[in-house]
């Protein structure tokens, strides 16, 4: 299976480990990634540009979709925020022909046109829907039995449910749990699984942002999680990078590794942790990795 690959800013910036892990995992799963197809595609605006100018943000996303259409490939992302923002933009563009025409007027300057045929998909959905959980299971060489992972979806891959087509694809609400179970680990349920990680208000209201980090990581840790797994690199940045601040705020240790979805899958596919830069996290994964090394 071949996809036009949209890694997003964070995987090329502050989370290079997500990018490395994705390439490793996709190779084993037979997902061919064409990054050239979307060469020069802009940032989605991440919901922030939308605050300033919605039409502008939608035009940039329509441009990305037009490039994907041109390549004839389906579009894959590895960032929940990109997924959510693209799905919302796509909904506005495909539901209103007049709006799409207005956007295409701008794209025409570059010889591009978005016809409305793209359905952007996160790697999580590609694993659960396009490849299938059974296929994933067939590729697993190392069951992560005895380990407990807390699924952290965040917001953009679960809301708004209409733009993300969750009713048509009810499996998307449980895809992360399905992957955790398929790799042989146990799912740790906790209340904040689909709540906000606090990243968007990181600079605006650091105390609220870090309280959110503290609440989620402590809830997961106290329910026995060895690590938290997320399909969103922005959630990762806050939950991992600001966990020491959150621990100071909560006046207790937390020490919960936050791993990216492809890193979890990669461990079960037998990929060496260093190849997925699992040793480059701010909250150390050392304990988790050493336990994995001795676990049967």
């Amino acid at each position, binding site marked *: 299976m071949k996809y036009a690959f949209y890694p997003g*800013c*964070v995987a*090329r*910036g*502050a*989370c*290079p*480990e997500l990018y490395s892990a994705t390439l490793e995992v996709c190779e084993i799963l037979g997902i061919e990634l064409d990054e050239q197809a979307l*060469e*020069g*595609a*802009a*940032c989605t*605006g*991440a*919901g*922030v*540009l*939308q*605050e*300033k*100018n919605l*039409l*502008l943000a939608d*035009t*940039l996303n329509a*441009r990305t979709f037009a490039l994907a259409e041109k390549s004839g490939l389906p579009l894959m992302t590895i960032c929940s925020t990109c997924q959510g923002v693209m799905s919302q933009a796509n909904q506005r563009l495909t539901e209103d022909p007049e709006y799409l025409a207005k956007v295409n007027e*701008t*794209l025409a*300057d*570059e010889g591009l046109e978005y016809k409305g045929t793209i359905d952007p998909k996160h790697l999580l959905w590609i694993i659960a829907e396009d490849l299938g959980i059974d296929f994933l299971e067939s590729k697993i060489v190392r069951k992560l039995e005895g380990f407990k992972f807390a699924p952290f979806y965040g*917001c*953009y891959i679960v*809301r*708004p*449910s209409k733009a993300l087509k969750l009713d048509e694809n009810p499996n998307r609400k449980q895809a992360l749990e399905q992957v955790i179970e398929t790799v042989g680990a146990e799912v740790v349920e906790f209340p904040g699984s689909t*709540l*906000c990680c*606090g990243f*968007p*208000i*990181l*600079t*605006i*209201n*650091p*105390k*609220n*942002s870090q*309280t*959110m980090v503290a*609440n989620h990581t402590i809830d997961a840790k106290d329910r026995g999680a060895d690590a938290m797994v997320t399909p969103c690199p922005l959630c990762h940045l806050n939950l991992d*990078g*600001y966990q*020491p*601040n959150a621990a100071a705020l909560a006046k207790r240790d937390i020490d919960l590794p936050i791993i990216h979805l492809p890193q979890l899958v990669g461990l079960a596919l037998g990929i060496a942790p260093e190849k997925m*830069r699992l040793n*480059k*996290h*701010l909250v150390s994964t050392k304990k988790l990795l050493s336990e994995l090394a001795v676990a049967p």
Partner: protein
Amino acid sequence: MEVNFKVQRFDPESTDLVSHYQNYQVEMTESSTVLDGLIKIREEDDGTLSLRCSCRAAICGSCAMRINGEAGLACNTKIVDVIPSDGSPITIEPAGNLPVIKDLIVDFQPFWSKFKAVEPWLQPGEIEPEGEYLAPEEDMIHLAGVVSCILCGACVSDCTVLEVDDNFLGPAALAKAYRFSRDPRDESDDQRLAQLNQPGGVWDCTRCMKCVEVCPKGVDPMDRIMLLREKVMDAGYNNTSGARHANAFAKFLKNSGWLDELRLPVLSFGIFNIKAMIGLIPLGIRSQLAGKRPPIFHHKLSSAKEIKKIFEKVESKK
């Protein structure tokens, strides 16, 4: 059809100061709503169960509560749509983020105080028109969605910011503030926007979209908050972390096509915000030690020129 409910109970007059869950089993039909079920429990099984309801038609906004953990109106939620597939009971809890008075009844006082704080009424200018105050049809059509708010509190119940901070005005009050701020007959924007720009106002929303998801009337409170942010910035209030973040974000995109994650937080906090700059140092050191940081030199995307042209063209239309 036999239906199992697990209802959160709390009685302020009991010696037990914490809430507990109680299970009920009732016979319902395929077309019954959650409210039908709760009323049946109260009338036939347990007269002590307290809840608010009135119109039973999603108009009065009295029966907002959490159904299986998510806020909604009990009167327009069909039982068959919320029976968990694993056979567990339907969980009913009072609305969140508001103090519980008894069982499913919450105290709306904090809701009303915030609502009142945004002055939810029209404030026309000093010059009175000779006849009526006229409003163009397209403006009122644009506001129709937000006018539909029935003040049920579902958005407040599930707001992820209110969960950690009582000071936030919250989605319902802010959506209402937009309703008046955007009304062509209202001329109080100077004061309104200045107030909404304060801490606890438009910038504290974390864009989690919970309010959009749970609103039973399609008010889309978060989208209104984003439009208020745009209004606040257009009015020249650009000296908040939120506005600096949005402006810096747009500038990076315009000039290079993608984000410069190394410089964005610095510009968002404000370079002269010494306390925040010092606060960033430990994170910088930790990232450096872990070998995890964005590239020091930010390069432009290959299509940076084309992207900049799109910015210029669309911005000129605004």
